[in-house]
């Protein structure tokens, strides 16, 4: 759905997510929305972005958007292709990756991510695909950016299952668990941008996309959402960004 602004909420989210990446970064890319945003960043303001996918493709630069984390185009355009143990043990685990770019089925007040089950683990309402690379991406990348559409079903007070640790139950928990990365530093949605509060680590609304109100975001959040006193507006996508994004997603 294109709004009066001339772009969709998903497009706004993808462009905002792309802005989290810079040319100097090494980025561990999850499939779906994060992959679209990373590829957009590569083709616009971050041409040097070093993208790696968990299939072992390092420094890949696909000319079309991959459907899976292991499409042939990722291998063909990579600086090198390594085995799966190598990508996790030699690249992710020692902290060589600046930013992990993840999606979520559920995300909670402290940015813990669930991609395992909705409901009870042994008697699930919905069985989801599971962890994949996410738990260690969330643990070991220097920081994590989550890209996810916002709704009260997805943004819950407490995740049904913690697949990947965000900030646990608050300040100090990552340190206590021995997690070396900073964890989620930004959650980018179709409504705005949330960041963990520096003191409590609770996700706080810091940025609104054009045409979205604080009440809209509150209605799409399953807890009493804190709003930053310095609430900012997200810059709108440029014509160039939209044109590159649409060439990637096949939407004219």
């Amino acid at each position: 759905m294109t709004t009066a602004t001339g772009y969709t909420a998903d497009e706004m989210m993808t462009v905002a997510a792309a802005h989290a990446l810079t040319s100097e970064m090494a980025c561990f890319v999850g499939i779906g929305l994060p992959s679209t945003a990373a590829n957009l960043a590569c083709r616009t303001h971050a041409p040097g972005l070093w993208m790696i996918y968990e299939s072992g493709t390092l420094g890949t630069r696909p000319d079309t958007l991959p459907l899976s984390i292991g499409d042939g185009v990722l291998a063909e355009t990579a600086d090198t292709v390594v085995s799966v143990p190598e990508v996790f043990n030699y690249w992710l685990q020692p902290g060589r990756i600046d930013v992990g770019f993840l999606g979520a089925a559920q995300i909670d007040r402290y940015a813990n991510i669930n991609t395992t089950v909705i409901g009870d683990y042994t008697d699930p309402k919905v069985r989801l695909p599971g962890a994949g690379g996410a738990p260690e991406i969330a643990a070991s990348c220097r920081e994590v950016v989550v890209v996810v559409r916002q709704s009260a079903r997805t943004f819950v007070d407490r995740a049904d299952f913690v697949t990947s640790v965000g900030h646990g139950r608050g300040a100090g928990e990552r340190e206590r668990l021995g997690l070396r990365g900073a964890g989620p530093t930004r959650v980018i949605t179709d409504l705005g941008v949330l960041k963990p509060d520096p003191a409590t680590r609770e996700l706080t609304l810091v940025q609104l996309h054009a045409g979205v109100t604080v009440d809209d975001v509150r209605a799409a959040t399953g807890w009493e959402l804190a709003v930053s006193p310095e609430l900012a507006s997200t810059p709108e996508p440029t014509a160039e960004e939209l044109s590159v994004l649409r060439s990637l997603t096949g939407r004219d």
Partner: protein
Amino acid sequence: MIVPLDEGVRELVGDGDTVALEGFTHLIPVAAGHEIIRQGRRDLTLVRMTPDIVYDQMIGAGCAAKLVFSWGGNPGVGSLHRFRDAIQYGWPRPLEIEEHSHAGMANRYVAGASGLPFAVLRGYAGTDLVDQTDTIKTIECPFTGEKLAAVPALNPDVSIVHAQRADREGNVQLWGITGIQKEAVLAAKRSLVTVEEIVDELDPVPGQVVLPARVVSAVAAVPGGSRPSYAHGYYARDNGAYQDWDAVSRDREEFSRWLAEGLGAQAPLPGKAG
């Protein structure tokens, strides 16, 4: 050494075995999985990092008693409906699961290939997987005192992979995204490799992995054997087939029809375990 696929499966895969069909999006041994379904294997413990549609088919056909995995989905499409039906409703039979992360599974294969009882990694800390999976423990580094995760070695009875080529002696060559296949084969007691073609000489290819014949129990020539996945240098991934599977797999009857007509296999008998 070089055998027809049906003979390879008959000799190497038995009821109740722990079987790993590996392939990380690329080179998935789909034809071998279908042959296991046709031969009606039962009570298998299926192991795979990324169970996708061929495991969905094997689970739906009633081959599996247990699944050891780290990500079960239809890549780029969504959920696996036969897998979900087995977990949520026990159809066609209940499926026990042992769930890990990719890093944990990769290290379990590495330990298996290395002749070690377990592997150590920075992983799982703070996740709910620790409470659900008996094969995740915490250990203390004897040198630094640091707390780390330990996971036991995986040593499948048989690992099955697909590769681009083998020579007549059974040396196997694969390239492109080579995933976890080398570790899966080296960790296993027996192995079966299906290949696109059998050649006189394995000409070197950049980024290749070679599995020497001495660690390969049998090779079967199965051109197109990883479709609808892909074989780098031979054919592309059939993304449409992954999308189409979603509709077929949503419905038990539709799926049973696919088994009978698409595969020439017997439909699973609901309520009967195996």
